């Protein structure tokens, strides 16, 4: 369980985190979602005891952050881009990470190497590794002591689909408390139980993933017309059918909740106007802010 209350952190004059509240329940996967420089990484740095907050309270499994050793025994931390000494082999690094936790059992190290797919390359130096393989080494180093809390900074970024699937499956089956970061809600779909959407160092939205998805909708279809003069007619027809429609420039966005609504929307649009182009678009983080906090935009 991770609980943060009224957390603040400044770097010089820049306020990286402002009155941030987070509550991650035990055994759940929580997503910390937001654009670049919104304070996600700072939050993970605070939780991993690399940085001290200026004010606020943080507890991990009811242990305050000030008890650094106890906290670090519980956490497994993986940075977005792990920087590892490239003159060492994967096995050496995992063994070193294990030894920092007082673990010297070869079978434990072998098991984690196997789980992270590093078995075959265990004795190769990291200078021959791809970014994906390096990230797998970072995962192995973070998981070797079987931590109860996982802090993962954009864990799927830069990974190939096979590694992404393996990590997702591992996290879902692990029954551990996981706090992961991401730049859009897609990462949270099918993985996170709850999310906190951050903007400018504060939490904008906090809640169960299913409820947030209900509020936001699944996505939108961007429609472009051959004759923009038909726009009003199209809007009238779509709104008559109860669709949520927004216009931006020449594009008309029709929002939907479920994938099975898409054919109906296309049919209705084609009956109302001559369509030049129609394609599904994902909600950007800005769209999410606009939808959840329309006044802010």
């Amino acid at each position, binding site marked *: 369980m991770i609980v943060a209350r009224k957390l603040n952190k400044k770097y010089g004059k820049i306020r990286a985190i402002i009155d941030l509240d987070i509550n991650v329940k035990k055994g759940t996967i929580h997503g910390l979602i937001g654009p670049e420089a919104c304070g996600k990484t700072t939050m993970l740095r605070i939780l991993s*005891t*690399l940085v001290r907050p200026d004010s606020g309270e943080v507890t991990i499994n009811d242990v305050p952050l000030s008890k650094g050793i106890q906290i670090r025994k519980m956490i497994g931390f993986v940075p977005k881009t792990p*920087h590892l000494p490239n003159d060492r082999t994967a096995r050496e690094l995992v063994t070193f*990470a294990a030894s*920092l936790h007082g673990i*010297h059992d070869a079978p434990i190290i072998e098991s984690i190497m196997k789980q992270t797919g590093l078995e075959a390359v265990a004795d190769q130096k990291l200078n021959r590794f791809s970014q994906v393989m390096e990230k797998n080494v970072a995962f192995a180093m973070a998981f070797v002591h079987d931590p109860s809390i996982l802090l993962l900074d954009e864990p799927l970024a830069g990974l190939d689909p096979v590694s992404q699937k393996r990590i997702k499956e591992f996290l879902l089956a692990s029954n551990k408390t996981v706090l992961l970061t991401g730049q859009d809600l897609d990462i949270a779909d099918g993985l996170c139980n709850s999310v906190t959407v951050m903007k400018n160092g504060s939490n904008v939205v906090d809640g169960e993933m299913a409820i947030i998805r209900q509020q936001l909708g699944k996505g939108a279809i961007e429609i472009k017309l051959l004759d923009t003069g038909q726009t009003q007619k199209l809007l009238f027809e779509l709104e008559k059918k109860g669709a949520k429609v927004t216009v931006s420039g020449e594009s008309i966005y029709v929002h939907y909740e479920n994938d099975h609504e898409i054919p109906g929307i296309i049919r209705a649009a084609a009956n109302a106007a001559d369509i030049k182009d129609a394609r599904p678009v994902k909600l950007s983080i800005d769209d999410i802010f606009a939808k959840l906090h329309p006044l802010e935009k």
Partner: protein
Amino acid sequence: MTSQITGFISIVNTETRRLIKGFLPAYFWFTVLVLISTYFVFAEKYVDISIDRSLMTLKYANNPMTEILLYTVSFAVSSVSEVMSGKIPSMVFPFSIGVIFFILFPLMLSLTYMSGHVIKKASTTITGEEEKKTLYIMATSPQTRSSIYLAKFTGLILATLPMIILFYLITELIFSSLFLSVYSTYDAGILVLQILLVNAVLFISAGMLFSALFKNEKKASWTGTKVVTVCSLLTSLWILIPFLEFMMNLTNSNTDILFYLEKLTWISPFTAELMSVYQPSVFIYYLYSLVSASVILFLLGMGIFIKKDLEY
């Protein structure tokens, strides 16, 4: 607690192995430097003669160079009759001058080289990892920041040990083969060993302070190197003070400025260390100040490192 200790040992082990790899060229050049300077000491002949100290008085005379200056004047005066009769005087040195040669060449050069190298390595031990962003591996483990700092410090000391041991053996060799009749080998060897160890601890502490203080590896390394350069320049000035006084006396100049210059040269730890070999009885007084300085620098660096925000 056991995991803390094994983790600490693991960091020390990793750091020492990494440092020794980086130290290999330094070990080689240190050996070359020590052997060449030792050869110079061995190239001269030393006898049991005394120096006529009545020929010249110097105000700031408590310095190895004074002894050399006195001996040179004494030798010149005593050789006049030989030179006048057309003979070339053969130059032999008293044992005390031999020891001064040891202080001025092998010891001074070794101290400067070793200090320059260890401060450079120490000043990049944290900044280097900060720049490479690898420090998070240790910093997110159950090890405390103070134990990481201490482990890195221990690794640096261990990596410096081969240089210290080599110089200790060379000291034993010089004193047992050249000056055995007047100096106890055991005392000289142990004294030099202590001096080198204290010196290494001092410069590693200073280097690690810069490493904790700066965020940039180049800046930390530059500062460390400059500190050693300034220290060796100050000690060189200290060595030259009797010579400067002699020259100023010849030109009837006011030598008061030398008083302040001499005080200034004591900022450099090398001055105290060379003086300790010249007059072993004073070593204990300098030892306290050198150890105190090391402890202050070490604690200051550790305090900064503990409070430091780390990147990954």
